[in-house]
């Protein structure tokens, strides 16, 4: 059985309860109290000590609101032409997205790990064994989503465990438990996939044709790594949420690079041998 997350960004209200719940449950250290000026996002990014991060994306109005606008209609799910040529999003839209480790099906961090500290556990989640990790840091540049970092003063690499300890006791992860709008859903990957498809269809029916699922091999373009166990329903370009469009598995090229190196070794050896000839 594989478990994972489905984060529906369309119902996220940016309350950051997931960030707080994650920090509390996993006893993660504070990252400081810096004001970034990047909207209300003072967390900035995922790291070894931040396993949930709520992104604040301000989509300002593209067109001026004119005429006698029905604000009630604006607030509801209405996309038919509004008076004065205004659009539903003409007031500007604020998008939130609670980012988390993607728990890739073919995880680059796991393949990079030289100690075997990063494994797939019984829930098919990508899990770092803290008692094995020796802090070589090779998983950090391998991750195509910038999820893992080394924690200073500890030396080891950390990331979302998908609340392995809670799952062992039959509980859902802390972030999913704390989410007040059910933007973060936890469950079996196959079930979540169905829920995601239904939700996207529902959004399409309401006229939001831009909605899609990010993290499947088909949509969102994660073919190189076989899809993610943490999926997202997004309403904008992946780059808007700081996500790559087509992440790939870096280790795909190890074999080719090794063969090229062997050829180079043979050529250089031959050159040295020729240099000995008079």
């Amino acid at each position, binding site marked *: 059985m594989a478990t994972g997350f489905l984060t529906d960004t369309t119902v996220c209200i940016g309350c950051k309860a997931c960030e707080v719940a994650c920090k509390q449950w996993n006893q993660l250290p504070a990252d400081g109290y810096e004001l970034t000026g990047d*909207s209300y996002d003072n967390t900035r990014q995922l790291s070894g000590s931040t396993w949930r991060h709520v992104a604040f994306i301000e989509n300002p109005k593209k067109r001026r609101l004119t005429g006698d606008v029905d604000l009630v209609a604006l607030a509801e799910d209405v996309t038919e032409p509004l008076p004065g040529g205004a659009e539903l999003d003409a007031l500007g839209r604020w998008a939130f997205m609670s980012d988390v480790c993607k728990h890739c099906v073919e995880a680059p961090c796991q393949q990079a790990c030289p100690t075997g500290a990063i494994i797939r556990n019984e829930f098919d989640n990508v899990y770092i064994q803290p008692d094995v990790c020796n802090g070589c840091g090779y998983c950090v540049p*391998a991750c195509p989503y910038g999820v893992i970092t080394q924690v200073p003063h500890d030396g080891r690499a950390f990331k979302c465990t998908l609340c392995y300890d809670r799952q062992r006791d039959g509980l859902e992860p802390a972030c999913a438990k704390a989410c007040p709008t059910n933007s973060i859903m936890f469950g079996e990957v196959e079930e979540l996939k169905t829920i995601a498809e239904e939700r996207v269809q529902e959004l399409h029916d309401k006229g939001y044709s831009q909605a899609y699922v990010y993290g499947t091999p088909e949509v969102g373009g994660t073919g190189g790594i076989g899809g993610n166990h943490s999926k997202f329903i997004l309403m904008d370009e992946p780059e808007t949420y700081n996500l790559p469009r087509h992440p790939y598995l870096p280790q795909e090229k190890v074999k080719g690079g090794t063969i090229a190196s062997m050829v180079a070794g043979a050529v250089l050896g031959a050159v040295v041998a020729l240099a000995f000839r008079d």
Partner: protein
Amino acid sequence: MSETTRDQVQQSNGKIETSHHPEADSRRSDKNYYGIPPIKHAHWTWQIPVYFWIGGIGAGVHLFSTIAQILGHKDEALIRTSRYTVLGTMILSPVLLIWDLGRPERFYNMLRVLKLRSPMSTQSWSVFAFGNLSGLITARQAADDGLLGDDNPLVRLVKLIPARFLTILAMPVGLNVGSNTGNLISATSVPLWARNWLFMGPTFLASGLSTALSWLSLVLHLTRSGEEKTLHTLHRAEKATIVIEAGLIAASLIRMSKWSKPLFSREVAPLFVGGTLIGGILAPMALLFGKESRPKSILASVLALAGGLAFRFAIIKGGRISADDPEAYFTFASGESAPQPEDKV
């Protein structure tokens, strides 16, 4: 509201700037998500580029001395210098690598599993195997040199070591130490490194051999111990290798295309253009292709060695800039430019 802001508002048809979204706020120049890097750069400090350099020298020296022995070229000074050099590099390498770990006391976990898909794993095993073989070979050398005393049980035991056989056995392992460092950095999500997966290993190996030949030439010249034939061969090999290295760096730059920009940034250009291309390749090339002389050889060796070190630092620093640039990563990971699973060699 200041005068300029009021002007801006009026020009934009009454639209008031309330947003900090980069695309709407002309005062902010960052792109994508507030310019925050979508991937994380490697934390590696100076120990890693220095290891890349030292490991490359060890691999190259071993390659040269092994071929000399296979071809029956008997120069005691060359063999001795080579063996002690390789052992020296293989003692320093693990020290540097363990130093850079977040938990140095757990370094032995590197030998917990062997993963062919992880260049870091194969690298650890190669350094382990190469170091041990080199230790045995050098022990034999030390016994032959009389460093372990005269006739005692230890010397008799050490003299049983089949040094020539082990030397040949160690050659492929040593070559892997030299080239795998390049494959190690290209098996990441960093555009500058990942894009160049085809030439990174060969370039590192060629550069390693070039620095190794320079090292041998430098030591033999300074100690005035090498045979004329050895020095001449080294000179010829240095010339050929530096040309191959230059060709591979050129091929790498073409392959990296627009993602090679960090190498020419203000921070890295002194290392890459000044230190590597001019100081480490063009200058030694000019010296080597002129008339052969001792001072020129020594100068060329020093320049090539420094250039090799500058190259390692330039690549690591360039990778950091590349990883921190959202634009570079997003263009790289947006389709055709990214290495795709179906790509063949």
